[in-house]
């Protein structure tokens, strides 16, 4: 092999290994541009552990419809967005929610301690309400209480409002069933999302602004007309799941059953509000078909054990290679360590979530990484026995071993691809994680076997002149 090309490869490998070590050992990497002090790279490189390793809840939600094929992809996506917002409101961090196949959504909640509540919140039907907020606009995101569902009907507001706004008595009210603590303001619900017929986004009167127009169902038109006539100038806040999403004021009586919400909305804001109005309740009803909770202790235990096992396995493989293949074996071991460093760096950078099957896939790929080296060394020995010089034997060994490495690894990659598709469309994240890790391992192992081992071997041969020691090659 050309010596200058080899030198160039060494530089590349050293840089790659240094970068991998840096990533593997740090939780965050950042590179500053020295010229103007701007940040070029700033990435969180904390390892992502799967739910089976860190504990948490995973649920598989499925559209509650007779025929899965009838669910539109856009509806499923909207459902996912609404569920995601709902879950975010619960204050659980790092939620991931992805659609899987035609009618499923996989939701993952790492580290939750109250899986029952989370599942309950996901399954509830969202409630969209228009509430009478009086004169003061409400801040978006404010949690409010409303009287919807507390009285028997919403068309008799006076009774509930009176009851709710009555000042708590100063005497001890242990007998009062109403509210022993001073109640927060309970807003009156004028109507719910069920009254809306259509919702659309329109271009507003000012250039670049948007507004939302809506029409009401016939039976709600009269109610809305009466209400808006008597409350001009008041705030009619829009509340989704008791959380304020918009707080417009009534500018004129809406008698015809259609109106609009104006304001300086951008296109995106108007769209998102329209979606919430349209789908206050989910466009596709969902039910929980699968739920997995892993306690944090079990997860920690699994991580510790599989790391120990992985380290022991790797150590045995390293010893075996050194004993059986002598010098090339030791060099392959160095390549194997390089392989492990690079893979771990990729896990952190991409990032790939490490689950238990994922770790198993990775450990298996160590075996395949060794296999590529074994194939090459067996070939190398054969060429040496056939009387080639060492340098010739190395290059011939590589080129002869290549077709088998290529074809065997291609078939593994094909299996990985099919596993991935299977895992992805059925929300089987275990199978998916396994296939991703195995595929990544195969690709990196090809790189280390073909480029790294060969470069290391040439480096040793070119500089230490070991060509006269066939025993060092296990011959």
């Amino acid at each position, binding site marked *: 092999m050309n010596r200058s090309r080899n030198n160039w490869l060494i530089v590349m490998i050293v840089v790659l290994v240094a970068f991998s070590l840096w990533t593997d050992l740090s939780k965050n990497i950042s590179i500053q541009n020295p010229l103007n002090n701007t940040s070029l790279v700033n990435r969180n490189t904390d390892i992502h552990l799967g739910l089976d390793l860190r504990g948490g809840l995973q649920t598989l939600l499925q559209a509650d419809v007779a025929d899965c094929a009838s669910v539109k992809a856009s509806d499923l996506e909207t459902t996912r967005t609404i569920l995601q917002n709902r879950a975010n409101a619960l204050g659980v961090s790092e939620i991931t929610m992805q659609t899987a196949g035609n009618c499923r959504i996989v939701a993952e909640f790492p580290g939750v301690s109250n899986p029952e509540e989370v599942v309950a919140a996901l399954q509830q039907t969202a409630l969209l309400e228009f509430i009478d907020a009086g004169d003061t606009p409400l801040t978006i995101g404010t949690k409010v209480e409303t009287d919807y569902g507390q009285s028997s009907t919403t068309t008799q507001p006076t009774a509930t409002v009176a009851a709710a706004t009555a000042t708590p008595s100063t005497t001890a009210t242990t007998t009062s069933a109403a509210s022993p603590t001073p109640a927060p303001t309970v807003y009156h619900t004028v109507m719910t999302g069920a009254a809306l017929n259509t919702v659309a986004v329109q271009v507003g009167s000012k250039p670049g602004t948007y507004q939302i127009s809506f029409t009401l169902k016939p039976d709600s038109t009269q109610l809305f007309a009466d209400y808006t006539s008597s409350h001009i100038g008041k705030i009619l806040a829009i509340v989704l799941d008791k959380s304020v999403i918009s707080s417009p004021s009534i500018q004129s009586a809406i008698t015809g059953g259609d109106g609009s919400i104006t304001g300086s909305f951008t296109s995106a804001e108007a769209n998102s509000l329209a979606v919430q109005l349209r789908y206050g309740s989910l466009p596709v009803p969902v039910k*929980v078909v699968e739920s997995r*909770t892993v306690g944090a202790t079990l997860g920690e235990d699994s991580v510790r054990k599989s790391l120990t096992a992985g380290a022991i396995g790797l150590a045995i493989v390293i010893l075996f290679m050194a004993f059986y293949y002598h010098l090339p074996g030791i060099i392959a071991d160095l390549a194997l360590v390089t392989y492990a460093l690079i893979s771990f760096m990729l896990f952190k950078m991409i990032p790939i979530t490490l689950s238990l099957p994922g770790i198993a896939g990775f*450990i*298996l790929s160590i075996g395949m990484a060794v296999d590529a080296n*074994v*194939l090459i060394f067996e070939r190398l020995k054969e060429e040496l026995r056939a009387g080639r010089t060492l340098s010739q034997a190395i290059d011939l060994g590589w080129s002869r071993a290549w077709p088998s490495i290529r*074809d*065997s690894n291609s078939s593994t990659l094909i299996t990985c691809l099919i596993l991935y598709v299977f895992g992805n469309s059925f929300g089987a994240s275990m199978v998916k994680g396994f296939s991703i890790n195995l595929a990544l391992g195969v690709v990196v192992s090809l790189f280390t076997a073909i480029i790294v081992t060969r470069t290391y071997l040439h480096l040793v041969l070119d500089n230490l002149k070991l060509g006269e020691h066939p025993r060092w090659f296990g011959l």
Partner: protein
Amino acid sequence: MNIIKNRYLYFLISLLIIVPGIVFMTLHWTSTKEGPLSLGIDFKGGSLLEVQFTGTRPASSDINSVYAQFSTATQPLNDPIIQPLGTDSFSIRSKQMDDATKGKLVAEMESKFGSKVIVLNFTSVSASVGAEVTNAAGFAILMAALAILLYIWYAFREVDHPIRYGTAAIIAMLHDVLVVLGVEAMLGYFLGWEADALFLTAVLTVIGFSVHDTIVVFDRIRENSNIYRRVEYEKMVNHSIVQTLDRSINTQLTVMFTLFALALFGGDTIRHFVIILLVGIFSGTYSSIFNASPILVVWENKEWKNWFKRKDAATV
């Protein structure tokens, strides 16, 4: 070393593993009607709850009564399968139960047994999803087999009869799948193991490894068929197997080392998975040496024509 010469002996050894496995699978199927293997909740639906007690662990009959308490007509939880786990935990399998019920059930255990109850693991799968996953898994295996067949057919297009190589690799792969399923059926019978999603992952891994291994041997045959054009096919195949033998065994050993480490130190969660992988990887190496290439020879000689003749000779 002449491996090809004794090919029928090696086929027989394979059958000695596969036939009992098929018998166990048939027995299971006829006795339970649910299929050849005892399936875990991932495939047939249901709930698995693993709980740890910080105080004294109650008797399993007490757990049984708590389950009975929450059993309803729509969600029958009567008679769960309760297995002790370590010294302070239980693993409880029942029909599917929702998260809300699980919460109430755990709270009831805490108050009834006066011990803090830690939920180690809770899985609940509806029967419909389970059935669908089972079908999809079968489909995935078929797809993988087909894709690999096509790939090998393509990769060996310059050899005579490339489809034989693809077919032989697939037969060797099916051999390994049957061995793994058979061993699982026996372990299910003797140890009560159930096939779960991890088992499926193991089977799929074995498929990948098996073909990987077979291709390495076939690659040698591909190469040698150009070099030794005058040597008869049988000898050339045998030579190729012997040449790749070191590699086959060494690769298998390195994978087995890591798997042994996982089986011994990896914890209970993945032991089942790892043992199935060990069986499958061993079978994968065996089949690539002793089955896949001999099948090529059987095919080349069209030996099935002689199978009946030999029988005739024996009867005469």
